């Protein structure tokens, strides 16, 4: 048994603002193997996006990765020179972002930019690159791919653009795909199509997929494992079935209760009171304590240590027992 494809240990990313450094990512451990889908879930400001960017070395000042290890296929990416990261990004590691309009170059046709992504990383002639682009577009469910290659991004619909962005990420058959809210801006039927394509791709190519989202339901359907982030930390992680069926962290429980699932018709939603703490005003002790119905004095003073058993991790002084209401 070899090491996982990607292993992140103690990742800490801070933002230097006004003489102080605020930790957006505060000691994150992650791992993912080939053919696996990891759902990284959190609300805005939880640090999920910064985690993704930190892994691929895309944090710019005032942000800085100040600690931790990012091991990709045995290679330490944190110590890798920028040139090496450039080589990996877009090739063995691909990223897909929420807004395809900012990913795609507006003055190049779809074919030109897709071919560029191929030629940047391998020796091929232009004809072969265009052919590969057409083939990859077809794989993400784009009809008449040849014609689309000659169009500009603004000529495509939102769903089509996101498919182009996904296809571009897939061109060089990446081993690791980091997707940051790629379907959040799309309609449900289009999201359904993309989830369907992504499931198929992971199955066929055995790529590892990190799906960053705020949507627990998407993760439930797509992922093998889930990591829930709150205030820069992973508060709970495990297989999707374990975490969603038997959440141990009160925050996970609260999130699950506050989602109106289609199968449920009730009168009132359980709600998590209060708001997530801002980066510059995280409380002492457990960051969730001010909103937690189970919090005691020690939660407000002591940072809960991470408890791990058989791949199930929880960061809570008083985790929920199986079957226990919150």
């Amino acid at each position, binding site marked *: 048994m070899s090491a996982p494809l990607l292993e992140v240990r103690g990742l800490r990313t801070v933002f230097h603002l006004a003489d102080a450094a605020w930790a957006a990512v505060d000691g994150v451990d992650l791992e993912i193997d080939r053919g696996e889908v990891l759902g990284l879930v959190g609300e805005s400001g939880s640090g999920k996006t910064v985690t993704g960017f930190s892994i691929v070395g895309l944090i710019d000042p005032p942000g800085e990765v100040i600690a931790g290890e990012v091991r990709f296929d045995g290679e330490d990416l944190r110590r890798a020179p920028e040139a090496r990261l450039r080589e990996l990004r877009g090739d063995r590691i691909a990223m897909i972002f929420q807004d395809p309009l900012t990913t795609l170059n507006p003055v190049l046709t779809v074919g030109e930019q897709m071919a560029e992504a191929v030629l940047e990383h391998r020796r091929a002639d232009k004809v072969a690159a265009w052919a590969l682009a057409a083939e990859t577009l077809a794989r993400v469910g784009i009809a008449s791919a040849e014609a689309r290659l000659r169009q500009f991004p603004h000529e495509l619909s939102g769903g089509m653009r996101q498919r182009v962005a996904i296809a571009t990420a897939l061109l060089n058959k990446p081993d690791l795909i980091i997707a940051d809210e790629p379907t959040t801006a799309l309609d*449900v039927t289009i*999201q359904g*199509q993309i989830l*369907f394509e992504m*499931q198929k791709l992971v199955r066929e190519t055995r790529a590892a997929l990190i799906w960053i989202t705020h949507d627990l339901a998407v993760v*439930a359907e797509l992922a093998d494992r889930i990591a829930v982030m709150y205030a820069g930390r992973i508060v709970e992680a495990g297989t999707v079935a374990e975490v969603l069926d038997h959440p141990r962290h009160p925050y996970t429980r609260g999130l699950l*209760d506050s989602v*109106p699932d*289609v199968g449920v018709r009730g009168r009132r939603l359980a709600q*998590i009171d209060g708001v997530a703490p801002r980066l510059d005003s995280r409380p002492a002790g457990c960051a969730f304590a001010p909103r937690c119905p189970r919090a005691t004095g020690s939660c407000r003073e002591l940072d809960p240590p991470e408890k791990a058993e058989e791949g199930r991790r929880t960061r809570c002084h008083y985790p929920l027992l199986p079957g226990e209401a919150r």
Partner: protein
Amino acid sequence: MSAAGPSQGARPPGGERRAAPIGGDHTSAPVLEVRGASKHFARRPVLAERVLMAIGRAKPPPVVRAVEAVDLAIRRGEVLGLVGESGCGKSTLARLVAGIHPPTAGEVLFEGRAVNSLEGRERLDYLLAVQMIFQDPFASLDPRMRVHRIVGEALAVHRLVPANELNAAIDRALADVGLDATYRDRFPHQFSGGQRSRIGIARALAVKPRVLVCDEPVAALDVSIQSQVINLFMDLRERHALTYLFVSHNLGLVRLICDRVAIMYLGRIVESGPVAEIFERPAHPYTKALLEAIPRISGRKRVFEPVPGELPSPLAPPSGCAFHPRCPSATAECRQTRPELRAIAPARIAACHLLTKG
């Protein structure tokens, strides 16, 4: 934006009046009704185009048929959900109902009277009674106004309360939505997204509306904040006996809080009826596809066959049934003739050729 005011009782183009607008329960009269309403948007031709059009060398700019011959009734005290994907016309329809846009054809009735015939005091009564809650809690609040002015502006402008009671009324509206009265002197940027939503709701409630038209009111909020605001909507409904038109693409939410739901596709309503029945037994193929596509927390590695294609452009709607290019069971008839809305069960209507075939 061009909009010809409809003459009263005018028949909408291409859509004859149906006897019962929606549903079969007539026990409570509709507080708001939309009859054969259409809303078309066209760009004003630029000078060069007008010249070319005059000499017959250019066509007028294309017309977006955002809403096309829609009948809808909102009964007193109910929560009616309006569901559809982006571009289907649901927000435009909500704005017709709230009186923000006048319809291009057809009419909107408030408590049985055509809105465009209302004048003076009566028109003001309608505009105040039907308040709108907007999607973006950032864009819908003036950043240069303090909270008390945002909430109290309509009260002051229309002199709805005596000047010496204005502050008390503002504080009551803030308390109603769970905001502390000490926030009254702050600016919108000093609040979180959830609090800003509450300010928008307080502004609407200040004028004591009877109907709230909510256009994706929680879509911009985080999950844990969404549930707080949704619970607030439910509390307010009971406290003030409000009627809601609730526009949303979030079907889980619609199922949770709505009594009835209407599903829109490309400017038209394709199905409507009681929420529980539609979610359990959707009739229209589009409704089925929509429900099937929603990710569920209970779904584990669910593999389903998604509906292909995308919403067609409202500039060039498909012939026949607008959904036929994406429909798994479309026939030749679907490609040629547009299906009318028909009763398919008590209180339920749908527009699909396949359903009337039995």
